[in-house]
């Protein structure tokens, strides 16, 4: 019971966040809905990375490659084989998950530093690899995807709350991403608080002890890799659909960094972290670039520099700041602030044991 009393009011917070995202397209423009779809898609990919890096203690600098695989799976199946795009999303996820699982097997033999390098190499070769089988991937030209029409029923329901305006395909892509993000965040939350999630975290905290209590370390580590890739594959599939165009340049090396930065900034080993990470890495650069280029008093040369280099510089600066001042990410910062406030309201001294403050890592 003390656990329940000490828990942050997280259920109310979850409801608020879900309501916010459900209602968002009714207050922002159709184009902005698509930007927010990007946030949710990044959140899915970052959640995948979070399972691997945050909860299991492995590292990947190559999750952009998994997104590329997911995106191209959907693009090729839709474009060449005229498959329904909705069907291709789980296919992309499962295929990427399978590839991730098999890549997880050699990863077992690598120390963290070499695993980082190996996955980084994967991210580096991905654009060139995509260009090769031109018949399949259309090479540098890439593959165009038509914006999907919203289902009529959903469109009608939406127009009721949106002043008679039917749902645009951008808004539909937003809701599709929202539904899938909701599902996959729920799945991750379930995994983490049950036996498999505890096994993943046990491995991160100590492999010898985890094995001593029956955790199949190699098995769980490869499964974590597969699961993580599954999330990235689904995100990639949605990313392709949302941008309507996939090409080798859609998946540069920097995408993989972006995802890792998002995971760290949001907060590793936290369920809310990836959403915060998605906002930081996808939405913030767009908004700040727009903001700067809208300011007429800033000379256009300077604002152009910011728009070009801004995101990269901001990531770097943010990452350093977060590492120094909030090693548990934005979510960790908020949680510790909440705890401090709560303890002050309750009166200090009640829990004063002269001990170091606990390092909370769940949710």
């Amino acid at each position, binding site marked *: 019971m*003390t*656990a329940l009393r*000490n828990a942050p009011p997280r259920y109310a917070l979850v409801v608020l966040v879900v309501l916010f995202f459900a209602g968002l397209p009714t207050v922002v423009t159709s184009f902005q809905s698509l930007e927010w779809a990007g946030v949710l898609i990044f959140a899915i990919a970052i959640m995948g990375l979070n399972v691997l890096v945050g909860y299991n203690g492995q590292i990947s600098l190559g999750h952009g490659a998994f997104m590329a695989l997911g995106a191209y799976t959907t693009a090729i199946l839709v474009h060449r084989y005229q498959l329904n795009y909705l069907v291709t999303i789980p296919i992309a996820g499962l295929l990427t998950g399978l590839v991730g699982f098999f890549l997880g097997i050699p990863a077992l033999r690598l120390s963290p530093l070499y695993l980082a390098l190996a996955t980084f190499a994967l991210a580096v070769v991905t654009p060139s690899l995509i260009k090769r089988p031109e018949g399949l991937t259309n090479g540098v030209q890439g593959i165009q995807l038509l914006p999907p029409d919203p289902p009529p029923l959903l469109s009608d329901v939406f127009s009721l709350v949106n002043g008679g305006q039917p749902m645009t395909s951008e808004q539909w892509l937003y809701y599709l991403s929202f539904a899938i993000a909701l599902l996959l965040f729920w*799945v991750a939350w*379930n*995994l983490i608080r*049950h*036996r*498999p*999630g*505890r*096994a993943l*975290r*046990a491995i*991160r*905290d*100590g492999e*010898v*002890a*985890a*094995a*001593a*209590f*029956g*955790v*199949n*370390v190699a098995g769980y580590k490869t*499964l974590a890799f597969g*699961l993580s890739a599954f999330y990235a594959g689904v995100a990639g599939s949605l990313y392709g659909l949302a941008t309507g165009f996939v090409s080798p340049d859609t998946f540069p090396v920097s995408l993989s960094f972006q995802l890792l930065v998002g995971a760290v900034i949001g907060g590793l*080993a936290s369920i809310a972290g990836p959403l915060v990470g998605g906002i930081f890495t996808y939405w913030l650069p767009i908004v700040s670039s727009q903001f700067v280029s809208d300011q007429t008093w800033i000379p256009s040369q300077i604002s152009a520099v910011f728009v070009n280099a801004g995101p990269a510089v901001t990531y770097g600066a943010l990452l350093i700041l977060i590492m120094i001042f909030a090693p548990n990410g934005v979510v960790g910062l908020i949680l510790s602030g909440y705890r401090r406030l709560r303890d002050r309201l309750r009166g200090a001294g009640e829990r004063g*044991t002269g*001990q*170091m*403050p*606990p*390092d*909370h*890592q*769940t949710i």
Partner: protein
Amino acid sequence: MALLDVRDLSVRFGGVIALDGVSFSVEAGQVVAVIGPNGAGKTTLFNVVTRVYRPAGGSVHLDGQSVLGISPHQVIKRGLARTFQNVALFRSMTVLENVLVGNHSRTHTTFLGAAVPTPGASRMESEARKRAMEVLEFVGLAGRAAEPVASLPFGTQKKVELARALASKPRLLLLDEPAGGISHEEVGGVAALLRRIHSELDVTVLLVEHNMGFVMGLSDHVVVLDFGRKIAEGTPDQIQRNPAVIEAYLGAA
């Protein structure tokens, strides 16, 4: 048949011989202690039995079956749980979560089962939590179940490790220095707890320890190692009067 049978066990690390032809056995229902000066090979012995190290020679049988062919994570399924010399708790988790990992081998919820929790998975989870709470009750830590282990004092962390091992319902418990690093006052409490584990839960205990008073008051049988060799074994009384043991501990008289 002995519950644990160690025969001619040898372990080498490069040129260093950590264990040299060590043999002894643990009968079901006994409390057996392995003692010896620092570097005698006591922890190495534990690490071989739990498959962390591979021996250069010899055999380890549990209930007549060799354990040397199985993976480290399968050891616990044979009913063999351990604690660690310097406490190897899962530091980011709470007390309860640590004990729940101890339960890992007795539950079988898979990734898929947990992803979309079925009624079966939820029932198994609540049963596991109930069992974990019972174990915490047994060691007297039920009130601290929700606390993160990293914030607990060392002595309490050792109790959590004991609870985690007990959650797997072992037949044989390997304890690496259960009285090491804790205050003089706490040692008596640990001894009493181990007696209850032995008698009430019917668990056979093999322990490594430096604290002689603790060992002599608790064990049925004592094995003495020095520089990787067994130099004596017998009842606590016999060991205390054994000249070779006295020499190993105090130097030649």
